[in-house]
């Protein structure tokens, strides 16, 4: 077994294990942390597949930003575990059936006769000056430009929708306008009054 193959099995093993832990842990914070571990290991797998840019981007985007927000939300959730686990025994047979079906389907679609080494040989190793990033950029901005732009617009719509759904206008709230705060002058706020002394002692 070559060293790369060994690494592949290490990454893949930890990936599957941590993915199992994500759905079996009782504590949601632990689940999120295992999901982070799963992302790390899939980044390792992508690195082995010579997709360096995608591997680092996965860590940067998912681990560095998305999962931080996940953790942020999950830590503040107040989840009643007893309620969540109430229907476990009753729905377990259905769940196992669905899981089995999905497993069989996945083996049929991505099994060895379609994605095996004979039909999908390993790509030629690239030379050291080959830039993954450049190739991806060229493909994205020429061949797949429309798909790229449409994805961008869909994301923008998603952002606007999320904000408009969750925005609450509360006119009774007191807001500060930093612009006004900056332009304020002492004479607008402070009045010095000359007063007679009221009594003399």
């Amino acid at each position, binding site marked *: 077994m070559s060293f790369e193959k060994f690494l592949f099995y290490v990454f893949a093993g930890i990936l599957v294990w941590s993915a199992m832990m994500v759905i079996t842990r009782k504590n949601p*914070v632990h689940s999120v*942390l295992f999901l*982070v571990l799963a992302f790390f290991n899939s980044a390792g797998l992508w690195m082995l597949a010579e997709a*360096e*840019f995608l591997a*680092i*981007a996965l*860590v*940067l985007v998912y*681990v*560095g*930003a998305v999962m*931080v*927000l996940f*953790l*942020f939300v999950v*830590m*503040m959730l107040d989840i009643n575990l007893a309620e969540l686990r109430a229907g476990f025994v009753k729905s377990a047979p259905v769940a196992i059936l669905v899981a089995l079906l999905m497993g069989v389907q996945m083996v049929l679609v991505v099994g060895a006769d379609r994605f095996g080494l004979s039909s999908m040989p390993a790509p030629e190793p690239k030379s050291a*000056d080959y*830039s*993954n*990033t450049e190739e991806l950029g060229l493909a994205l901005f020429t061949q797949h430009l429309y798909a790229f732009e449409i994805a961008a617009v869909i994301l923008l719509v998603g952002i606007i929708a999320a904000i408009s759904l969750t925005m609450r206008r509360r006119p009774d709230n007191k807001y500060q306008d*930093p612009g006004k705060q900056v332009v304020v002058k002492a004479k607008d706020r402070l009045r010095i009054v000359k007063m007679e002394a009221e009594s003399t002692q």
Partner: protein
Amino acid sequence: MEILIALWDALPLVVQIVLQIVAIMGPVLILVAYYTYAERKIIGHMQVRMGPNRVGFFGFRLMGLGQPIADAVKLMFKEIIIPSGANKFLFLSAPVLAIATALAAWAVFPFDAGLVLADINAGLLYILALTSLGVYGVIIAGWASNSKYALLGAMRSAAQIVAYEIAMGFALVGVLIASGSLDLGAIVEAQSGGLIHWFWLPLLPLFLIYFISGVAETNRAPFDVAEGESEIVAGFHVEYSGMTFAVFFMAEYANMILIAALTALMFLGGWLSPFQGTALESWFAWVPGIIWLLAKTFFFMFCFLWFRATFPRYRYDQIMRLGWKVFIPITIVWIVVVALMKVYEAPIWFS
């Protein structure tokens, strides 16, 4: 000399790499120790105090130069208290996460032309990914401590770091448009030609935003609401004692050094001499590049301390406003400006 080179080549690759790592980590950790001393001394003098001046070596006071060593020894011998109800594994792994990301980023950092541990062509991306992981140390520490103050500190820190990371990332996009490369060495080479060719001038807004966001990212004053000792005691590391606290402390300072060094590398020409292209160039030709890099880095490290002595802490909503409503729009606009300058080959910098 030739014997030494032959000896070096005879070593196995693993030993070579370990020795190289030691050669980087040793100076960085010593710098971290003496950065804390410099902070106390500089802020002391700014506030007309003496700063630490008692602990020296062998009976000599030496302006308190022994202070960091004494602090380290003290922290090492203190008890590590684990709060009741805390998750022990996560509680202890949080400081490790914080320092590991701060130190691992140095792997791709070029100290001089070709003087780099791992010369990968996506160095900038790697550093961006690693620095974005540092927040996990803070969040996990806050959560695993089983303490309200710590959790509040972690929440503040998470929101703040996510906000400023976007601005920081956009600033780096500007750098990579200007240099046309993700390779840190190539980014420095793209700035060669003298003081006005360095990226601080064409990317002035991005330069300022990058450094200010770096201050926010490392949770330093005036953005240190994650610690906010007047409101939430010490924030995320309130439950940490002894060496676990010391590791957080070291991670914070290592991150500050990293941000300072990266700012010097990407906006002030890294190891390039400031006299390039002037009559003084040949006079200073004997100065090794790493000295210039260190001088620029030390300037930004000094700025961190200067800010702390100068500015009052930001209010939380003001931090959020500055990050989301001021910095991010400016960076987006300037990225477009840089791209236009690049396309139309603006004189001096991109022609």
